[in-house]
């Protein structure tokens, strides 16, 4: 694969954080300005591989996420490219003001790379879930937000984030998720990927919900419904063109995200649709609640983060479209 020493074998069938760990080493080899910052979770975010290879470029701040994020700003002012790693709830919430005031406001070249996002720390419970981070981060000007949908996209996103000039929030889960991209896949910030063409309804998804969206489109197809699936891997800047096209060409939209429906991808899409091409938008996601406790699969089903929810939302969106057209 261009620009990286990782092979497809390294990428396939690995957990997101393991792949992330290897991508860090690869970018570290290529870009000497990259430094890795951690807060006593360098092991579990998988920064440990980088730490082993580049001990002099790795800084563990202990359990002090606010300090780490503020220090990242300092590194950036001196020409380094800091990658600050932590669980998503900590980067987005514990260090929230540092992200806004020390990084986004001065528009510094810091890469915030969050693992364990969404409900991927299932039995960790609400303290360790992050279903608010997109909403928070989305409200910070200057910040680019990327939510990769599989291992390959994670690797590409790490590279592109480092090459991009300016602050980036990269949001990753924890476990294994199915591959949805082929190896020649090209990742461009702000340009969504059409995973499947379709004219009856569009499903715009990010992260773990892209695979669910594809599964939903498969079942819709069996019922004669032709669903478009868009991987909206960049939440900000949002690919407005693709959203408007989906609204104009299919007239009905479903969004799907492992995040609160308040403030997330769904609202970003709805904002664009209502301003440019009004059409029904149904949001699949966490319905403004704390997610509770349980193994990941069970929690997903309980919360409706499934292809079945997308299927029924698609039908609802289509019926809203047709009742409007009547």
């Amino acid at each position, binding site marked *: 694969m261009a620009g990286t020493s990782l092979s497809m074998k390294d990428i396939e069938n690995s957990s997101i954080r393991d792949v992330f760990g290897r991508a860090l080493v690869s970018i570290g080899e290529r870009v000497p300005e990259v430094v890795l910052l951690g807060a*006593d979770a*360098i092991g579990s975010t998988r920064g440990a591989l980088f730490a082993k290879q580049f001990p002099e470029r790795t800084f563990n701040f202990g359990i002090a996420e606010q300090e780490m994020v503020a220090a990242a700003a300092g590194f950036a002012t001196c020409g380094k490219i800091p990658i600050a790693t932590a669980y998503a709830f900590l980067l987005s919430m514990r260090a929230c003001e540092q992200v806004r005031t020390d990084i986004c406001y001065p528009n510094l070249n810091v890469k915030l790379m969050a693992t364990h996002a969404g409900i991927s720390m299932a039995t960790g*419970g609400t303290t360790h879930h992050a279903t608010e981070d997109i909403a928070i981060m989305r409200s910070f000007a200057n910040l680019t937000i990327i939510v990769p949908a599989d291992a390959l996209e994670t690797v590409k996103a790490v590279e592109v984030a480092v090459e991009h000039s300016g602050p980036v929030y990269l949001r990753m889960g924890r476990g294994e998720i199915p591959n949805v991209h082929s190896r020649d896949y090209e990742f461009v910030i702000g340009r969504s990927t059409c995973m499947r063409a379709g004219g009856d309804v569009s499903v715009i998804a990010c992260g773990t919900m892209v695979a669910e969206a594809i599964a939903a489109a498969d079942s819709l197809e069996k019922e004669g419904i032709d669903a478009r699936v868009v991987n909206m891997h960049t939440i900000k800047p949002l690919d407005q063109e693709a959203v408007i096209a989906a609204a104009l060409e299919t007239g009905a939209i479903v969004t799907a995200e492992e995040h609160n429906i308040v403030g997330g991808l769904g609202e970003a899409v709805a904002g664009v649709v209502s301003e440019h091409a009004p059409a029904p938008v149904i949001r699949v996601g966490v319905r403004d609640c704390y997610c509770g406790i349980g193994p990941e699969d069970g929690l997903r089903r309980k919360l409706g983060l499934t292809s079945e929810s997308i299927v029924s939302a698609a039908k609802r969106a289509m019926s809203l479209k047709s009742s409007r057209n009547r």
Partner: protein
Amino acid sequence: MRKLGAQELSVKASKLRMMAIDMIDKAGGGHIGGSFSAMDILTALYFNVLDIDPRDPNKRDRDRFILSAGHKAAAYVPVLAERGYFAVELLDTFNQLDSPFAMHPDMNKIPGCDMSTGSLGHGLPVAAGMALALRMDNLSSRVFVLMGDGEIHEGTVWEAAMGAAHFGLENLIAIVDYNKCTMDGPIDSVMPLEPIEEKWRSFGWGVRRIDGNDMQQILEAFSRLPELDGRPTVVIADTVKGKGVPSIEGDYHWHYGRLSDMQRREAEATLRRGM
């Protein structure tokens, strides 16, 4: 309930460690290291020190306890069950869908739990708020808060340390489970705390240093509070991560895990000897 003495408490702590091993095993894993370093202190608190009543868990004039290092729930939840807040059988649901408990405690689901925790560095400032409110209402209730040693890296701990001393919160008792390990490694290589006693003292606290796996010393520390009049007290408890399970003692790799059958048998044999 009759207060248990040091010898009985040690037996109880061994029993609780066995219960926790079983619970963690059924759950598929748990924060065994930090839970077991703190088990003796938790046992002493709940079976001797705290003025509480499981039949009336929300009694206004009870002592409060915050498990600020919420991941030590694998010790805390069995302690609450054994103390009578809920049925011991419920421990089998740990980590399961819609169980009242998992890795980190939720005050709205667990009877007897005074604060939801899991994100480190929140407990001491919350405890300071409780201590201020209790004092305002002329209650003699005390607030105990248990922190991990790594946890006190967090700046919020030191903001609260400064505040609690300023407010003269002699009804506030912080305990640091000084097991010398964090998640990434030995604390001295991750981010050392020394000189730990001087740090707290210079912030205006009464400081007590004990062996936190020695029941006699634990009871003695809690029997004369506050350590200094008009000041909050910190008990710095030297402990061993994974205490009670020979194959994992002192090993930071066992921050989280599930014992093998062999480790389990060995641990149970050791713990039985302590009973």
